[in-house]
Structures are given as C-alpha cells and as structure tokens.
C-alpha cells in the first residue's frame, strides 16, 4: 500500500486538531501540517492531497483561499475543504431522498447551526457556521448560492450574541434558505456543544434533519445533573474515511475546491450584507481546479 502524504491546513482551531487526530488513526497516512502562505508552494509537489479546515479563514480571506487552490491546482494536488456534515450518513440519506424526489421540488430551507462560542474565535459565529450550512444546503438542493441577506441582532452585551443573525440565501432555481448561525448554545446552559437542524420544505413533503438527535438523557444525583450523551455517528471519521478512500482510488474528492470557495464567498457576503443592510450578490467563482484526481 502506498503511503499517503496529506497536507493539513488549519491547525489553529479545534476542528483542525480533530482532523489531525483522525488522520493519525491510519498507519499509511503521513500528516504534513501546512501554513497557508509560506511552506505550501515548496511542499505541494509530493503531496497526495490537501485537506483544508474550513474554519481556517477566520483570519484569512477569500483571495488567500483562491491562491492556495491555484497553487494546488498548478501542482496537480487534489484539494478538499473540510465539510463533515455532507459526508455524514444522515445527510447522505437526506440527499438520496431528495434525488428520489420524495418531497418533490425544494421550495425553502430552514436551518439552524447553533454552537457554543469557541475560545479560538469568539466573535465569528456567522462566518464559521454559515460556511457549513451553505455548503450542506447547496449540496442537498443541487443549487448554487447567488444572493445573501443578513439580519443581525444587536443590543446584547454578552459575547455569545455578537454574531446572532439570520442569514438568507437565495439559490439558483428559486430555493430560499434562512439560517440561524448564532452561538446560542453556551455550555453554561445548554447540554450539547452543537445543535444542528435543517428542514427542507418541498412541494410534496418535508425532510427534517436533527444532526445530533442520537442522544440518551442522563439524570443523576451526586451532584444533581442532567446530561445528553450523544451516541450517533462520528462525522469527522466518516469524512476522513471517504477522503482517503477516494484518493486511493483516484476518484474526485467528496467536496470540491469550488464548493469550498462558494461557501466561504457566501459567508463573507453575509458580513457585507450585514454592514450594508441590503442583499448582496455572491461573487461568481472563477477558478477552474485541475487537480481533482490524484495523479
């Protein structure tokens, strides 16, 4: 079995750490931690693929990400943005149902990506959470996001609500999604780190997804406590498994570079819309990435 050299970008946050831990479970995988700017051009030549932790652009911007993808493309290195949700069995089952037209045409989507505020990025729930939801909805609906409108809450001094906002996304083919992206699941009062729900409203039915619904409830004394014990799928495990599997078989990676760019562009547009107070068109994605298939 050939050894795989995986470039990993985004080690300054908990998601990146989780990707690395998962990759370490594979004895044939070597992880090379990369930095966005310096090392990459030197190293790309002999990498099997690059896994990009999408949380990284908290401090990067769209242009940095574009040039990174261009570099990978130049060296024929497959590039994958980390979107674990769409790789999860629950999302795949939903996608299959949509493709079988179980709910007819999708009219609207209501989504909530609620998480606790993370210490590594206390103020950017909208960016962190919008990218994941835009990607998941685009993929499920088979549509491209075109326009963003953001309505932000204000007046809350507490940091959890700094970015509390509804992000509206208008897709091609008329689908409209509204996403709650707030950091409203503080560990001070909520029993799970993340609470992610999505409802697809179709002409012939509705699909409701509650990503972390698989949980047991625990009530105890010594001391008095209530806990939710999640026993569902490990989403990162599923994503890494598919990522490596596709590299080994020379297949396109589960998430394309352009999908990542589109989602990040949408998230930045959400901020632009919030500051302008108006709907904002998402910049079209220009890059044609050639390195999708491992050589």
């Amino acid at each position: 079995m050939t050894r795989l050299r995986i470039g990993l970008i985004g080690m300054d946050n908990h998601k990146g750490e989780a990707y690395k831990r998962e990759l370490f479970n594979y004895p044939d995988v070597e992880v090379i931690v990369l930095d966005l700017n310096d090392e990459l051009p030197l190293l790309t030549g002999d990498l099997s693929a690059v896994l990009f932790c999408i949380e990284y652009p908290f401090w990067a911007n769209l242009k940095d990400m574009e040039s990174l993808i261009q570099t990978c493309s130049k060296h024929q290195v497959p590039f994958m943005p980390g979107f674990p949700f769409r790789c999860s069995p629950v999302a795949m089952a939903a996608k299959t149902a949509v493709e079988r037209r179980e709910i007819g045409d999708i009219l609207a989507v209501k989504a909530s990506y609620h998480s606790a505020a993370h210490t590594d990025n206390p103020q950017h729930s909208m960016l962190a959470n919008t990218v994941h939801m835009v990607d998941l909805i685009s993929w499920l609906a088979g549509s491209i996001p075109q326009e963003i409108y953001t309505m932000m809450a204000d007046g809350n001094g507490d940091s959890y609500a700094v970015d509390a906002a509804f992000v509206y996304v208008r897709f091609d083919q008329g689908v409209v999604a509204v996403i709650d992206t707030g950091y409203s699941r503080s560990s001070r009062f909520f029993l799970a780190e993340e609470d992610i729900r999505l409802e697809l409203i179709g002409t012939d039915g509705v699909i409701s997804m509650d990503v972390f619904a698989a949980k047991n409830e625990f009530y105890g004394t010594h001391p008095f406590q209530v806990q939710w014990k999640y026993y569902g799928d490990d989403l990162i495990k599923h994503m890494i498994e598919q990522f490596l599997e596709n590299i080994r078989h020379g297949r396109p990676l589960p998430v394309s570079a352009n999908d990542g760019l589109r989602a990040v562009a949408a998230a930045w547009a959400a901020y632009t819309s919030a500051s302008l107070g108006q709907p904002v068109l998402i910049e079209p994605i220009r890059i044609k990435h050639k390195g999708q298939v491992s050589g």
Partner: protein
Amino acid sequence: MIGSELKVAIAGFGTMGKKYAETIRRIPGTRVTAICTSRPESAISSGAHEKAALFQSYEDMLSYGDFDVVCITVPTYLHKSYTVQAAANRKHVICEKPIALKPEDAFDMISTCEKYGVRLFVGHVLRFFPEYRNLRELVLNGSVGSVGISHAKRASACPEEGSWFTDRTKSGGVIMDLMIHDIDFMRWTIGEAESAFAFSRTADGVEYASVTLRFTNGAIANLEAHWGYPGPFTTRIEITGEYGILRNDNLSSRSLVLRKASTTQQGSRGVIVPEVTAGYDPFWEEIYHFLNCIRHNDTPIVTAEDAAQALEIASAAIKSAQTGTAVRIPKSRCLERK
C-alpha cells in the same frame, strides 16, 4: 349587566363558529340565542343550540336583536362590515383573528365600536395557551436575560381546495391567517417590532412563509408558517437570551397520544384547530375572559389595538415578501390614539 345572563349570537358557522358555539355552551351564565349561517342544516345537526334562532341573513339576525354580543367567525374579508353593522346595532363584538385584512379597516372597526360605545375583542387565542403563557412569564421575569434570537413555527394541513382560506383576497394567505398567532405572541413577549424581511413560496396545496422580525430592543425572530405540512399540526417556539434558552414543541409535550392501526386519507386537508386534552381549554378561557371583560368593563389580555398592530406587522411582512426588501413596520393609528 353584572350577574345577568349574557346572550350571544354567532355570525358564521364554519369550523370556528361551531367551536365558539360549543365553547359558549360550557360557560355558565351565557347562552347562544342566534346563529347566522348560509348552511342552517349544519347548525341544527350540531345539536348544541336547539334553542338558538337561525338566520340566513346577517341583517335579519341583527334586526332580531335578542343578544348582547356577536361572535364574528365569517371569512376575514367580511370582518369589517360585520363588526361595523354589529356596533351600529349596539352589540359588543368578539371577532376571530386576524382583525381585518387592511390596517385602515381595523382602524374603522375600532373607531366605530368606540363611537357606539360597544366593546371589540379579537380572538388571538395563543395568548391563552398555557405553554405560551408560561414561556412569556419566564421571559418577563428575566430567566433568559435580554432576548437575542428567537424562532416560531406553525405548520398545518392545507385548507380544503376552493375554501375561502386559499383565496388570498379573502384570508390574506398563510402569513395573515396562521403566522399572525406567532406575530402577536412575539410582540406581546419581546416588544414592538420595527421591520420585517420575508419570503413566501407556493405550490399546489402548499403555502410556506418565512418572516424575520427585528424588534426595537435589537432582538430578532424568525417565524415560519406552513399550509400543506404533511405531518400532524405542529407548533414550535424557541427564545434565546443571554442567560438561556426556552423552547417548546407541541408534539413532544403531549400528555395523551392516540394512534389507530388503520389510517385513512381523511384529514389530509382542512382547517386544523389545535386539539386540547388538558383540563385547561384556551378557547374556553379566551371567550370566558372576553365575556367577563364585558360584564365588568375590564381591559382584556389582548386588546383590539394589539390586534391592529399584529395586522400592521403581517401587512409589512407580506409587502416584504412581494418586494424582496426589508419593510419598516408602521405604528398602528389605533395605538397612536391611545
């Protein structure tokens, strides 16, 4: 009037008219004396009001006049003319929600009732639902701190094909007829709303609307209303503040669930009135409260002006859905006068 029997007339005998009649029968000191309906046979077959006089014409019922209060449960577009006529005949009015389709109609209704010295109540029954009252009390006593982001959802079967509900010129559509419950509740609980951003999507047998309200205190709330929902009647609410989250889901808070082995297609369309299995019946509480307000000249939990402002919010939301831009919510003239 204190202590004496209140006589009630019911104008319109569809789903809500029957609900009112059946409820009023269980309120002591109250009697239904007249019913006006284009389908008198349905009134008779209901068996609840053998002693009520039946009329096919509203004017005839008003001339008959042996009642103190008229419950108006006709299609929404008729609320104004029915209310104004009742007021002119010195009858108090309990009108189903929404108060009217246009803010100027609500103004006319309120000022006409004032002119003739009669009371006007609007049936925003959600304010009498115990789960919603409890949530509001928790918000008001500061349990979650200042409110940031909230959600509400109301999903129901699609009204029957050809019924007045499906005609927007008569019902105002899903925002005006269904979402108005949550609009009024959020305003009651969070405060005045200043702008609305909305979209709606329709297909055969489906009307779905999503409205985001921004409140003057900086809070935002996303409300969903859905006709043509394939599941059971569903309501959900979540209110998030700096210290916590409040949420309720009607399907996970039922004390009694009946499931039958064989199900038929019946009930896949129609107007759904939430089932009440607790001893506490919000519809009973609401009508009882309104009748007591008439008896004792009290201020109701929900005023006609509240209903007029809910209508302003719904109208702004509909305008936003049509134009694709955020719409500022004007303060109702009815509130301005107060």
